């Protein structure tokens, strides 16, 4: 980095010194093994070109992949020496053109000399790609041609995706020698490097090639390096769109006429230059990898299709709009129906409450009769005493007794009205013990008539939860009446226990335990379905309404067999507040 800075400052100062004649031509070169090596490799070539084209001066700018991309986009350079991958990647978008392709010295003029090698440490147990599955991999850069994309292509042909195949991919960026050291130090388990890197570093004495192995070896005639992939054309010399054609022509001529023995050719590890080769295979590779620069995003393709086939496009847009409108309309209908259904359910609940009261009416009338009878007796008893002039000292307590009895009948009427009154469900903090007692008051006569003993077992004196009291009362009355009715068919002692306790997660569990004949097996699965009943006169709505009410309170309701004979109906209500 520091070196690159020094070099560019040096070059810059030199350029400003020699400002006199024609403009300096800038050449971007890919410095994949570091700036120094890049300068060393190409300096002779540009000295040669400067000599061959009178009045021209060249400045070499070693660059990384992204720096070179930027330079092309901004057109801040005149020529480029790079691998064909980058040429296709950026060049085809920004109007670059090949002038000449390098002839490889190492591989006897073989033109396809760029490939990838999958390198592992010689001492490692890995024998093939498969052994590296879910291991750590090193590579140069996601945009590097030999250092990643070529081997990616090999894997893609086998249907594998490196991003998922390996546990992790670390990118070293330039200079790429680092990758080999990573393999040596087992920072990574394997690395994708450009073919011939191992051989070059071995020749330079940096490593011993025998310490490493290349997996998935491929054979190509005249190609001397270990490699794991198909081969692609060698580096080429390209001009940018703005570079004057005449100048390009001169450069091309000079390059093509460079002798294989020249210093320039030797320094660049080549036998000189030849006519540019085809980039066909590279286009193919990029298409396979789905990263071709000309590839359009799906919406661009769709838009282009729409522009060409606008009638169809308009038709589809209309269909989509109609579909959307239809969707909205269906939503409105669903909402409306849901609301109606909800109202119907409430009406049904209310109707069932009224029906219960109807069935309880004779009992309720009796209950109402008691205080009325008492009032009558007190009143007539008072009258006879008045007639006999015996009442002066008793009158006050007598009237008090009458008043107490009148209030008692008022309470009964209130209870009935509260239960039958039409109302929207409304949750409020409710004392469970009080609610159960109110329910039992309504059922008092039923219990008496059927000779049923009802026991109340509250785990805690005061349990207050947020519920709709009328609805839960309806559930309690339904369930207790069910037990009473079921037991009335059997002889013997009739017992119902209403138990309330708290569960560990603060739910309030209600249990209505009877000693009746138990649950009929054929019905038990359908017990909460409407219109399923074992009663002669029942509609089968009771339990299904209970289920609906409990579920609307986010609770559960379930049946159990009483091990001592009979049935246990359980329901739970969430959220208990102290």
């Amino acid at each position, binding site marked *: 980095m520091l070196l690159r800075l020094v070099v560019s400052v040096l070059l810059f100062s030199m350029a400003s010194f020699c400002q006199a004649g024609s403009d300096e031509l800038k050449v971007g070169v890919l410095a994949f093994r570091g700036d120094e090596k890049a300068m060393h490799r190409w300096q002779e070539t540009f000295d040669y070109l400067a000599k061959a084209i009178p009045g021209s001066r060249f400045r070499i700018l070693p660059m990384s992949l992204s720096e070179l991309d930027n330079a092309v986009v901004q057109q801040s350079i005149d020529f480029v020496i790079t691998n064909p991958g980058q040429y296709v990647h950026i060049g085809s978008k920004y109007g670059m053109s090949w002038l000449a392709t390098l002839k490889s010295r190492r591989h006897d003029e073989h033109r396809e000399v760029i490939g990838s090698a999958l390198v592992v440490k010689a001492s490692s147990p890995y024998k093939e790609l498969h052994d590296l599955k879910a291991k750590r991999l090193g590579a140069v850069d996601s945009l590097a041609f030999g250092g990643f994309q070529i081997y990616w292509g090999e894997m893609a042909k086998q249907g594998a995706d490196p991003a998922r195949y390996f546990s992790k991919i670390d990118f070293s960026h330039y200079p790429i020698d680092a990758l080999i050291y990573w393999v040596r130090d087992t920072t990574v388990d394997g690395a994708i490097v450009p073919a011939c890197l191992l051989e070059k570093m071995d020749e330079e004495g940096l490593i011993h090639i025998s310490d490493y192995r290349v997996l998935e070896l491929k054979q190509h005639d005249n190609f001397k390096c270990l490699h794991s992939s198909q081969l692609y054309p060698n580096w080429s010399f390209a001009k940018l769109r703005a570079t004057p054609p005449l100048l390009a022509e001169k450069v091309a001529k000079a390059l093509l006429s460079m002798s294989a023995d020249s210093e320039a050719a030797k320094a660049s590890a080549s036998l000189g230059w030849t006519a540019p080769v085809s980039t066909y295979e590279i286009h193919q590779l990029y298409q396979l990898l789905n990263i071709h620069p000309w590839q359009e995003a799906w919406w661009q393709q769709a838009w282009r299709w729409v522009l060409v086939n606008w009638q169809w496009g308009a038709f589809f847009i209309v269909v989509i709009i109609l579909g959307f409108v239809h969707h909205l309309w269906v939503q409105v209908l669903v909402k409306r129906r849901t609301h109606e259904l909800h109202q119907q359910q409430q009406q049904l609940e209310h109707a069932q409450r009224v029906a219960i009261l109807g069935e309880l009416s*004779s009992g309720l009338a009796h209950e109402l009769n008691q205080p*009325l009878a*008492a009032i*009558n*007796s007190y009143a007539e*008893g008072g*009258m006879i005493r008045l007639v006999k002039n015996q009442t002066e000292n008793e009158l006050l307590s007598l009237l008090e007794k009458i008043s107490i009895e009148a209030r008692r009948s008022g309470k009964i009427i209130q209870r009935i009205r509260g239960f039958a009154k039409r109302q929207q469900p409304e949750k409020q903090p409710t004392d469970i013990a009080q609610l159960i007692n109110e329910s039992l008051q309504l059922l008092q006569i039923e219990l008496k*008539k059927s000779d049923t003993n009802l026991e109340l077992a509250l785990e805690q004196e005061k349990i207050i939860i947020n519920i709709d009291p009328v609805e839960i009362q309806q559930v309690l009355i339904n369930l207790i009446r069910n037990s009473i009715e079921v037991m009335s068919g059997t002889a013997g002692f009739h017992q119902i226990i209403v138990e309330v306790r708290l569960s560990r997660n603060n739910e309030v569990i209600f249990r209505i335990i009877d000693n009746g004949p138990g649950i009929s097996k054929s019905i038990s699965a359908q017990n909460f379905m409407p219109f399923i009943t074992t009663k002669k006169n029942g509609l089968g709505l009771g339990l299904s309404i209970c289920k609906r009410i409990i579920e609307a309170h986010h609770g559960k309701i379930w049946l159990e067999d009483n091990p001592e004979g009979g049935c246990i109906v359980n329901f739970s209500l969430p959220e208990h507040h102290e």
Partner: protein
Amino acid sequence: MNKTLEVPVYIVDDDQSVRESLGYLLEGYDFKVYVFDNGDEFLKNTSVNGGPGCLILDSKMPGISGEEVHEKLNKIGSTFSVIFLTGHGDIPMAVTAFRNGANDFFQKPVSAAELITSIHKAQKKSIFLYQKYCNESLFDTLSEREKQLFFMVAEGRINKQISDKLCISLRTVEVHRAKMMEKLKAENITDLVKLYDSLFSEQ
């Protein structure tokens, strides 16, 4: 004992205010009132043929029901008369009650006048029943021969006829007759006929 007001009135009802208010009402009419909150309590604490009595019964009560109390009284052969006063009566219940010999059957609330009239009747009947019960007890103390004599005397036969019929001496007839009259606490022939009527003419 002939004064009906002396005949005690028993009230059995599980509803406290009903039985207390009824008690209050009846005491206003100078009845001797006893209240019980269940049938067992009443049966345990009352001598049901130790004298006349009027029982006002509720039908549905926890434990033993009003109908069951009535049945038990009948089984014992009680001389009490029974009035049903129920909150939820119906025709079958009323029919059963009357078949079992109830005096009356009321639905709550009942007017004092009706109830008082009914209680008076019931008391009279109970007095009669008790009388009959006492007479039966007296009759049962007679020997077979005395019983034969009792029927003949009640039918109006004179001693001579009796001695002929039974083939015993006139003297023996006179001795038996005196003994029988003494056992039955009858002063004269009129008392004896009254006793006969109370025992046999009713049926």
